[in-house]
């Protein structure tokens, strides 16, 4: 599904955020991207979502190199992805329903289809009763769930999440992770960046570990003593 071939990213100020990164995520796989703060996790996700472009290397999405895709085609790639951030980026002027409906409106779905899909997505994250609320009246955990509903409403093949539980307490974080597992179980590929090792080591998924811009492990869980040296 996603394959990085020798990807490097140097920011304009000369900082090398990613160095010769190789990894792949299979179709229907779920994995965690981890590493210390500043390791390059967000940078890696931004490259997949084409929010930023790599300096070198290839990013294969379903076998197509998207590293040098023209800006005009970027929206087409984004519509195949659900993107979730630590801040859910909800629009305060719109109801929960309208927020979640946005990707469908962009893709030109019919009115009835939009209603059906939005309610299905809200039901999955347990917020069906709050569809007429505005984001400001929701708790942090609920807002994050609205963000997730918006990311999955278009039935994307890939979910990318950057520190989705960063603002939440452990209990809510576990709930959010459980949601991602549910989506993965129906075949969605999921890549979650998180430095919350306590949370992600409880779950049995592959860990991709970045250290100062290098992919130091793409296999199994890292050893406990290495974790402590990283943190």
């Amino acid at each position, binding site marked *: 599904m996603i394959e990085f071939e020798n990807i490097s990213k140097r920011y304009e100020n000369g900082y090398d955020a990613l160095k010769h990164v190789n990894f792949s995520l299979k179709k229907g796989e779920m994995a965690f991207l981890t590493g210390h703060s500043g390791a390059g996790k967000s940078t890696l996700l931004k490259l997949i979502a084409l*929010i930023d472009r790599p300096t070198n290397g290839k990013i294969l999405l379903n076998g197509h190199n998207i590293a040098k895709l023209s800006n*005009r085609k970027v*929206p087409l790639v*984004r519509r195949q*992805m659900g993107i979730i951030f630590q801040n859910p980026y909800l*629009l305060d002027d719109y109801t929960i329903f309208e927020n979640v409906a946005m990707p469908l409106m*962009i*893709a030109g779905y019919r009115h009835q289809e939009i209603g059906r899909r939005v309610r299905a997505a809200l039901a999955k994250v347990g917020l069906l009763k709050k569809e007429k609320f505005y984001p400001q009246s929701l708790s942090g955990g609920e807002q994050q769930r609205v963000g997730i509903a918006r990311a999955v409403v278009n039935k994307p093949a890939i979910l990318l999440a950057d520190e989705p539980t960063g603002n939440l307490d452990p209990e809510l974080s576990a709930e959010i992770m459980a949601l991602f597992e549910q989506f993965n179980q129906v075949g969605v590929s999921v890549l979650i960046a998180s430095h919350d090792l306590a949370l992600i080591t409880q779950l049995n998924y592959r860990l991709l570990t970045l250290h100062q811009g290098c992919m130091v492990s793409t296999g199994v869980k890292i050893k406990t003593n290495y974790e402590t040296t990283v943190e």
Partner: protein
Amino acid sequence: MKRNHSLYQSTLSLLLKRHRTAILMGLGRLKKHLSSTIFTSLVIAMTLALPILLLVLVNNVDYATKGLTASAKISVYLKPGTSEQTIQDLMHELSAQEQIIKIRYISPEQGLSEFAKSVGFKQVLLGLNHNPLPAVLEISPSIAYQQPAQLQILAAQLRQLPAVDDVQLDMDWIKRLFAILSVIKSVTLGIAIILGFGTVIIVGNTIKYAIQHYQKEIQVLKLIGASDSLIRRPFLYTGVFYGLFGTLLAMFIVGVFTVSLSRVVNNLADTFSTNFQLHLFGFSSFVAFCLLGIALGLLGAWITVSRSIKQC
């Protein structure tokens, strides 16, 4: 992937649907931020009202000069002792000319009594033992021959006639008025044009502030896969609405102002013994102003939104 390809098949129905969505989104935003919408339209209206008012005034100067020259008259003084028959022949001959629309004959007796009435020296004048006034033909030039230069030519022709002693054309004040009016006209037009340019900037800036609310929205829309044109379109409609509302409001302001001014102008026109009336704008100008306003709104929105989209 299938659905994405169909997006590029820009069939008419798809286009229409997209524009309908864009219009609804644009209107929805205006309704959501109603106070900001009203404020923005008002600012645009105030900015547009002044140049529109000036253009209306320039237009009225044109009307006014037409009305004023319509009152121009040429007085032809005949030589003393010209016989009644000669006068009749002359009048007949002159009224056949296309430059002349009306001739009024004022006999010496009539002239004296009119003079006496207007001046009020009745007793003194009646005391004179002979009438010093000549016979006068008061000539009204036809509408097509009202320009000062044309009047002067006509006056010169009349002066050539054997029975004519003198011709008086009250040209000086007409000339002076024309000169003053043409200066006023140029200055006003110049100010209107300068204000017009200023309006482009102000309208653009106003729309820029109105659209800044939406920086986050643009960012989110981009992230969830909206194309630039899809993001831009509703804002362009927003700009069009602002431009249109603003212009309609501006013309309303100008209309109210003109109507309230027209009473004063009517009084002034009376003193010039013309029945001049203030003109507003015709239907074609109305449409032209609307289109101009829409174009301004569209331009302002385009520049602003394109910049916003690039920044995200």
